[in-house]
């Protein structure tokens, strides 16, 4: 049986018919990579929180571009907690970093209350601050199997900043890993600017869900 679509013109000119239920429209293909929420730097916020994260995805990804409001050019990092859990001994982290001169590694094997995301250089500077115009640091954070009730949660991140040598020994490329010693499903993620300075306007943190 043919499919008929009712419109004003169909009433005045007769019903157009189609052999397809799509009737010339494009098929809807559900995405396997969905945008859940986006948070932005306001110039006055020191934390970014994604809460009420649905458990319906398989993995999460946070894509971010941000700058710190401090006037300092020294270290700026991101600290990450899950489900507002800041208890000591619940996290560990490691990284492999290149500052343009040396490759090095650091980490905390146990007994820490956060996962630290670095973006380090020779003097261990981190993400760019407002002293460097037009340049933002970037990061991609992946959290696999975040809703599992049987697995501790593992995070992987790649982060980087290049400043074209605008400041000596500044910037770098870093691979980060982190562990949350909890089998609870992740329902919230908090990213904190640890020195109390704020995320500048133009900073954006986008949370995506990946279906499995």
């Amino acid at each position, binding site marked *: 049986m043919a499919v008929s679509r009712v419109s004003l013109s169909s009433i005045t000119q007769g019903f157009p018919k189609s052999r397809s239920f799509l009737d010339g429209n494009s098929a809807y*293909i*559900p*995405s*396997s*990579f*969905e*945008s*859940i*929420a*986006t948070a932005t730097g306001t110039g006055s916020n020191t934390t970014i929180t994604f809460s009420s994260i649905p458990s319906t995805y398989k993995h999460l990804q946070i*894509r971010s*571009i941000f700058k710190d409001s401090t006037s300092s050019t020294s270290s700026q990092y991101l600290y990450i907690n899950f489900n507002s859990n800041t208890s000591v001994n619940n996290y560990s982290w490691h990284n*492999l*970093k*290149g*500052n*343009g*001169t*040396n*490759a090095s590694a650091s980490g905390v094997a146990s007994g820490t209350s956060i996962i630290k995301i670095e973006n380090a250089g020779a003097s261990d500077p981190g993400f760019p601050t407002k002293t460097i115009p*037009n*340049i*933002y*640091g*970037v990061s*991609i954070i992946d959290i696999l199997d975040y809703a599992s009730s049987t697995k501790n949660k593992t995070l992987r991140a*790649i*982060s*980087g*900043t*290049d*400043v*074209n*040598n605008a400041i000596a020994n500044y*910037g*770098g*490329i*870093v*691979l980060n890993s982190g562990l949350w010693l909890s089998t609870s499903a992740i329902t919230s993620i908090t990213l904190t600017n640890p020195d109390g300075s704020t995320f500048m306007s*133009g900073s*954006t943190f*986008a949370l*995506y869900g990946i279906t499995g």
Partner: protein
Amino acid sequence: MAQTYTPIATTTLGSAASSITFSSIPSTYTDLRIVLISQTTNATTGGMEFQFNSDTATNYSYTRLRGNGTAASSSQSANTTAGYGGYVVISSNWSMNTIDIFSYAGSTYKTALSTSAADQNGSGDVWNIVSLWRSTSAITSVKLNSTLGNFATGTTATIYGILKA
């Protein structure tokens, strides 16, 4: 629901070529991601660089982290003519390169994260790179250049648009 991760264009080379270009990139996404499966016609390992909006001036820079199976190292280059995408392997293997370009249509300088996996069964490299393009213009085209030899037949590049809420 709007598509969040959308393939914009794909190119598979039917013959060797020195470059692959994606042009007329719409400004409607948040980030871009390029995935390249490639092989070089060079006798030894090749490389890949990228340029935006036909800009061949020294408006780029990058910082690199490399592992070559023996040692980890890092290097930095300022005022370059392209961003760096990593290595490309020789026949009969294929390398994987990704380039994530953040806020490509925004009004600040453009930062890209690149990864390169190039293993040749006895040699090879893994790279992670951050590149900067010192331009506040929206990116409307991306050109991938083979730095040694050409991209071989069968090399495939896809550009995706990622859209935040």
